[in-house]
């Protein structure tokens, strides 16, 4: 089996390395935007405090008008806040949304919910009504090319007739920087995303993960005020996607970018977002509601059946009537409100009811699941069931197991009583 790991693919190639040294040495950073604010993230940096600007020699004198202009433009850029007021079109219904400076706002929702449509509206690619404001300035009347909003579509859309470097250079078209400065900047960005050895390649010669980085480098090259990412990892294989996700997250954080990240993957949403909203049927719910996203790995991957199921809700909504509505496994669940903040909910495997037929009674906290594995013991049967892809461990008494006779692949109906939940 071929090794698809990103690490291997990104190993610097001998040629690329040589070229890269030849280019970097005489040049110095002409575009201070990222590195002025994030010195320890600059290419070649050994970490905080170790920054040495590389392209200083060609940098115009500080007194020059050019330099001042560039500095102001690049410091204003990148940290913008976005506000949508009653934005609507064929697919969207009165969207209100506020994305704070430097935050990643994740929008989750099923396919066809209008996620891409929303991003296209913000980018200026689709008609709409309503107000869109960036830093308090209305931009809805501006055409896409004047909005300074970067957009990475699901297909990435790298220009196939240009090399990787050419793709980055054309993205810097509107920046008032000399060509040598653009080349320098392109190289810096490619280094930042560790694709500089691929500079001369056409997009058709890049792997999925490399294309992803290239698209990101390109959108950063255009110095957008904020960036819109439309399921950017959806076309990658699982391992690469997972790896790139954490990398992307780190990049967004460290560059202090304002971003909207759209996905249908709850796990991805949990990892990427500072804030979350759900879009379905063109309606945005919980806008601006700040979710406490569990840090990655907070949910222990428990392999012991005796331990309770730990549920890390993606969204929580305190309704104030003694119940908290949580979103988990793509469904809504109600758990008791203990009047405090929490990140996890526990359910003992023995307190989950499983039946062949839908259980009677009120329809809250019901689920349909697929039996994944069955483990018989003396007095009980232990099952692992999958609810929308999330695993849940269930323990049923042996006599009930005699009636149910579960086998892997069976569809079963389940119920978790409100009292079965324990707030962790």
């Amino acid at each position, binding site marked *: 089996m071929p090794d698809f790991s990103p690490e291997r693919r990104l190993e610097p190639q001998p040629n690329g390395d040589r070229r890269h040294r030849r280019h970097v040495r005489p040049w110095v950073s002409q575009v201070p935007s990222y590195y002025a604010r994030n010195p320890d993230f600059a290419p070649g940096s050994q970490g905080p405090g170790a920054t040495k600007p590389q392209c200083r020699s060609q940098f115009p004198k500080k007194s020059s008008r050019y330099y001042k202009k560039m500095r102001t433009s690049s410091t204003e850029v990148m940290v913008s806040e976005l506000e949508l007021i009653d934005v609507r079109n064929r697919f969207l219904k009165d969207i209100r949304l506020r994305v704070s400076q430097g935050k990643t706002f994740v929008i989750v929702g099923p396919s066809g919910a209008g996620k891409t449509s929303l991003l296209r509206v913000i*980018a200026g690619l689709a008609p709409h009504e309503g107000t869109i404001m960036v830093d308090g300035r209305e931009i809805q009347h501006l055409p896409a090319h004047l*909005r300074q909003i970067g957009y990475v*579509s699901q297909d990435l859309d790298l220009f*196939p007739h240009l090399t990787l470097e050419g793709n980055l250079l054309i993205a810097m078209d509107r920046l008032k920087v000399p060509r040598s400065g653009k080349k320098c900047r392109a190289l810096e960005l490619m280094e930042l995303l560790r694709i500089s050895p691929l500079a001369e390649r056409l997009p058709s010669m890049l792997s999925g993960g490399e294309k992803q980085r290239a698209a990101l480098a390109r*959108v950063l090259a255009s110095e957008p005020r904020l960036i819109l990412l439309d399921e950017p990892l959806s076309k990658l294989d699982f391992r690469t996607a997972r790896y790139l996700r954490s990398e992307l997250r780190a990049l967004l954080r460290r560059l202090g970018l304002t971003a909207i990240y759209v996905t249908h993957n709850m796990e991805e949403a949990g990892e990427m977002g500072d804030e979350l909203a759900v879009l379905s049927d063109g309606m945005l719910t919980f806008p601006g509601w700040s979710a406490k996203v569990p840090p990655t790995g907070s949910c222990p991957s428990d392999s012991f059946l005796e331990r309770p199921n730990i549920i890390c809700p993606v969204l929580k909504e305190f309704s104030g009537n003694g119940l908290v509505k949580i979103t988990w496994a793509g469904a809504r669940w109600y758990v008791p409100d203990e009047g405090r903040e929490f990140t996890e909910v526990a359910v003992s495997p023995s307190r989950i009811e499983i039946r062949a037929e839908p259980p009677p009674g009120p329809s809250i906290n019901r689920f349909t699941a697929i039996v994944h594995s069955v483990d018989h013991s003396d007095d009980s049967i232990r099952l692992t069931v999958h609810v929308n892809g999330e695993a849940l461990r269930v323990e049923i008494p042996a006599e009930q197991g005699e009636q149910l006779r579960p086998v892997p692949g069976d569809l079963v109906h389940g119920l978790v009583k409100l009292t079965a939940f324990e707030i962790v």
Partner: protein
Amino acid sequence: MDKLDRMLVVPLAIVVLFVVGVLTALVSQVSGPELLSALRSSETGFALKLSLACSLTAVLVASLMGVPAAYFLARREFRGKGVFDTLLDVPLVMPPLVAGVGLLFLLGRGMLGGPLGDLGIHLVLSPWGAVIAQTFVATPIVIRSSKAAFESLNPGYEAAALTLGLPPWKVFAKINLPLASRSIASGIILAWARALGEFGATLMVAGATRFRTETLPIAVYLNISSGQLGVAVSCALVLVGTAFLLLLALRFVRRNGHAGL
């Protein structure tokens, strides 16, 4: 080779013999030395130069008008677009002679010719008439192939370019045009071949005057009618040779595109 293949080979052989027969018939009309001297004659030289000048000018004008027009047609929807589209294709199916008559009347004294003549511009019965006739037949070919090329582009590239801050004209010049360039180039080559061989409309608009409006096809016509087979055949062979080169160019353009398009 099975039975079906043997049956299929027969029509193929007939077609090939047809083509080869025509070429042989052309060449065999005149002896080698006669052909050589005819090729070197000033009349053949003039016809070749005029043909190249007229057809290149015509193709240039056709491209400068046809490609932007096609870009507009490929991107905008409006009422009556279908009718409009069909109208633009009319020159493709119009008999060249009829097109020539129409152009002659349009450029004649009664219509545009009057005011233009007052300005000192005389298009009819001049080499410019040949250029106009050739432009008329070449433009729809350029429009048709360019429009198809622009329509087949992935709209995502344009969206990406716009959000990266490229103004629409740069999106056209730097993204869409290069991406469509291969199909546009093959359209332009076809249009050029068509312009080079254009006879009917040129005859009507530019007339057939020796050493004035004598393009290659006109030279063939004039010399056949006056019985000078040598010059007629040499001009015909030059035409065939040029067309053949254009066909080769077309194959080359179609084969060597950008990777990943």
